[in-house]
């Protein structure tokens, strides 16, 4: 093997090592903190931004510490599919949907706008978190 050829190969190997080191480093830096909303958070933004308020974020983790799934998804009748419940603010104030609890009785009332309307502008409705049910590759 000629010297030039050897040099070429050595250079190639070094570059390979270096590139994979960069890739690995980036992977390791990113792995512990992907852009991470909490698993199971639900965004409501069918009407909110159109009506000039922030999107709503519903945290499953917070509520499931206090209520079994069956309270909302059976007793109170929330459909188990993000977006299937068409929620209007007038309903909530009348005691439907979130308003079944957020009525100054079981939890604080519907006048605390900023505690529910907490999302960044531009969010899409749906379940956000570590995984979603949108199909292969999205979980």
């Amino acid at each position, binding site marked *: 093997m000629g010297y030039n050829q050897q040099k070429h190969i050595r*250079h190639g190997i*070094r570059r390979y*090592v*270096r590139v994979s*080191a*960069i890739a*690995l*480093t980036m992977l390791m*830096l990113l*792995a*512990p*903190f992907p*852009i*991470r*909303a*909490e*698993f*199971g*958070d639900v*965004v409501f933004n069918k009407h909110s931004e159109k009506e000039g308020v*922030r999107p709503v*974020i519903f*945290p*499953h*983790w*917070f509520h*499931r*510490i*206090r*209520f*079994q*799934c*069956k*309270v909302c*998804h*059976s*007793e*109170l009748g929330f459909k*188990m599919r*993000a977006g299937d419940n068409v929620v209007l603010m007038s309903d909530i104030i009348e005691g439907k949907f979130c308003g*079944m*609890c957020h009525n100054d009785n*079981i939890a604080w009332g519907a006048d*605390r706008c900023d*505690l529910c*309307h*907490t*999302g*960044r*502008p531009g969010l899409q409705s749906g*379940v*956000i*978190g*570590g*995984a*979603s*049910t949108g*199909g*292969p590759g999205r*979980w």
Partner: protein
Amino acid sequence: MGRTSREQRRVKPARRWSWVMAVAIAISAGLAWAGNWKPLAQDGLHDPSNTALNQLQNPAEALSKLPPDTAGNQVNWVKALEQGKINPRTNIYAGTKVKVLDKKEPPDVLMKNTAELSMVRFPHKQHSEFLDCSNCHEGLFKSKAGTTPGFNMFNILQGEFCGRCHGAVAFPLTECKRCHNEPRPVPGGAAKAR
């Protein structure tokens, strides 16, 4: 130019990269140890300019006290309930009838169409401690083992059947072994775990 000085110059960057990698490993190990819950203001979802955000609870505050897990909310919710770390209400209205399971009725359902993988033992007991029968029957599943049409892993990954909850709110579908939990008996007699 001399060959040796060139050689040295080429070696150094490689060494530098190994340092960078070592530091990166140390940092990511430290972060993993510290837990992965993001404060609300930094989770990419909540609007940090909302001044009321500090009145909400950060996930780490509540979830770090519960039995740990490696996926989803990083909480083993089944253990949290069994150990009494959480005590979620079963109903809001006094009149609501809450079905409680007597012992193992209905039984676990063993699902065998799992190709080479371990079989799936579906536990009714653990699910009924969170859910009502009507959350699954008859909408998602039939009440007779082996009769639910279209029930397979592909559709689960599409967000149907088990995937309606697992991957959205309950532990995600990456945890194969927690569902594929029943080793397949092999003709020789001993069970084969996989």
